[in-house]
């Protein structure tokens, strides 16, 4: 780098750039948070959904599955599983685990009661109705 471009110039670009772009990021964040009510399906964010989200978390479903494309890549995407399989299948599926099929990837049994299964399904339904800009590309997730 040329000698006329000094360290203090570089330092000023760093501080100026960092502050400017962080403020811009904050501004975009404020706008995003204000726009979200139209997109994030909060109208359907009930107590039951909140309980379902907690069950999702304390059983670490994200450790095998993706949800809206984020998580682990070992098991199917669940952001749209409500559309792919429907509520009854999901509940029956979770109850029937593990499959025990030799050599096949396994999902544990989480010993959930019927109310808890309903909560989880409510959460998956709520998640599936978030406006994700048409992701995933097809029903297979």
């Amino acid at each position, binding site marked *: *780098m040329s000698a006329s*471009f000094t*360290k203090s110039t*570089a330092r000023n*670009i*760093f501080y100026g*750039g*960092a502050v400017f*772009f*962080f403020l811009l*990021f904050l501004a*975009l*964040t404020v*706008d*995003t*948070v204000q*726009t*979200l009510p139209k*997109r994030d*399906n*909060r109208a359907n964010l009930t107590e039951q959904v909140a309980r379902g*989200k*907690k069950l*999702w*978390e*304390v*059983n*670490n*479903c*994200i*450790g*095998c599955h*993706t*949800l*809206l*494309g*984020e*998580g*682990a*890549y*070992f*098991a*199917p995407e669940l952001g749209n599983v409500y559309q792919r399989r429907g509520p009854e299948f999901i509940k029956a599926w979770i109850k029937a685990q*593990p499959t*025990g*099929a*030799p*050599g*096949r990837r*396994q999902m*544990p049994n989480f010993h959930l009661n019927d109310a808890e299964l309903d909560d989880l399904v409510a959460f998956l339904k709520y*998640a599936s109705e*978030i406006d*994700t*800009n048409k*992701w*995933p*590309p097809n029903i*297979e*997730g």
Partner: protein
Amino acid sequence: MSTSAKAAPRPAGGPTPANMHIRFASQTVAKPYFVAAIGLFVGQVIFGLIMGLQYVIGDFLFPEIPFNVARMVHTNLLIVWLLFGFMGAGYYLIPEESERELHSPLLAKITFWVFLVAGALTIVGYLAVPYATLAKITGNDLLPTMGREFLEQPTITKIGIVLVALSFLFNLSMTVLKGRKTSISLVMMLGLWGLAIFFLFSFYNPHNLVLDKYFWWWVVHLWVEGVWELIMGAMLAFVLVKVTGVDREIIEKWLYVIIAMTLITGIIGTGHHYFWIGTPGYWQVWGSVFSALEPIPFFMMTLFAFNMVNKRRREHPNKAAVLWALGTGVMAFLGAGVWGFLHTLAPVNYLTHGTQITASHGHMAFYGAYAMVVMTMISYTMPLMRGREANSNGAQVVEMWAFWLMTIAMVFITLFLTGAGILQVWMQRMGEQPLGFMATQDKIAFFYWLREAAGVVFFAGLLLYIVSFFVGKREAARG
């Protein structure tokens, strides 16, 4: 900027008679941190190999170690050993830059044991009881923060991490305040404070899934594509000053330009995670444009390392450290820059989001940038802390073999996962008759076998790396 004239007087003893290769005795508190880092790295890779097998033999170790448990252990050990590495680097680098002893070596030692025990207990918790039980007994109900990727730690562990970070930052900040202030130490401190501050977002876990995800990335993305790059840049600059003897002014100028580009591109670049999670469509433009520029600072890091080594004014006997420094530049650019760019534009990411392409990039980026920069620092400082300027030739040869084995194995892991990812996208997400997830996984199992084989080579490289610390002891002691 104050100069060395203002620095505290050289403490009694100065360079310890016992070890003339380090300037301040307190720098050696870094040693246990580095040893722990390497130990946890071994654990990380073992669990990686377990998961690699579960990818192809689905019921391997089921139900003893379900995949999600192995994954938590793998990724959390990764983060924890990198944090140990950063802390060790901080304890070594800050006293040297500040030209004074560490504020409190005792506090650093206590912090080490607290962090190690808390980390070990957390891992034992993952393995010993079902995750839901762990959540219950650690009081997750009071402040639910668990069950999100990378942030699986019980809330009390998270609080522990914050306390450890505060103790560490207090110790280093006091040292800097009382001593010489250099650009390298300033950037290091900015990065470390940023790390702690952004971690606080892990305590924010709203019921609203979109908000949850939005701010989750403030920890994950603003770490690896933000403040961690400051830490990495400072560590690399520190080692390059030492091994090349190039004028500090030049090195620090590069450092500022690199981290300026990091934050100019990387902050708004967070938008590449806001394409499909419920956030507004304009993020597809902001995220694509800015993150497409994120490879620039990584490319500059490569140029930086090579330029400084080419302009070196001395031949440092620690050739292995120079190799690690150059390797970090190249591999960080490949893993973060090239493999990041590959899937960062919204139309491409629409297809690749959450596939093996993501995993391929995650592996090479974490290894190339952060694992390697920590090993660069270890390679440079460990011989000094053990009382020699560099390891014996024999030890360095072994270390360089380990470098090549691990690095080439990681290139292959990345390539095999990329192959798997391309086929996955093709079969599952394109065309009229897409295959289901599990059917697709079956068809690409061959690539997972190859990845596992490359993983075994990686593991061999890692073991060789450990061996290198025990080679040629007698020879070095004489030198």
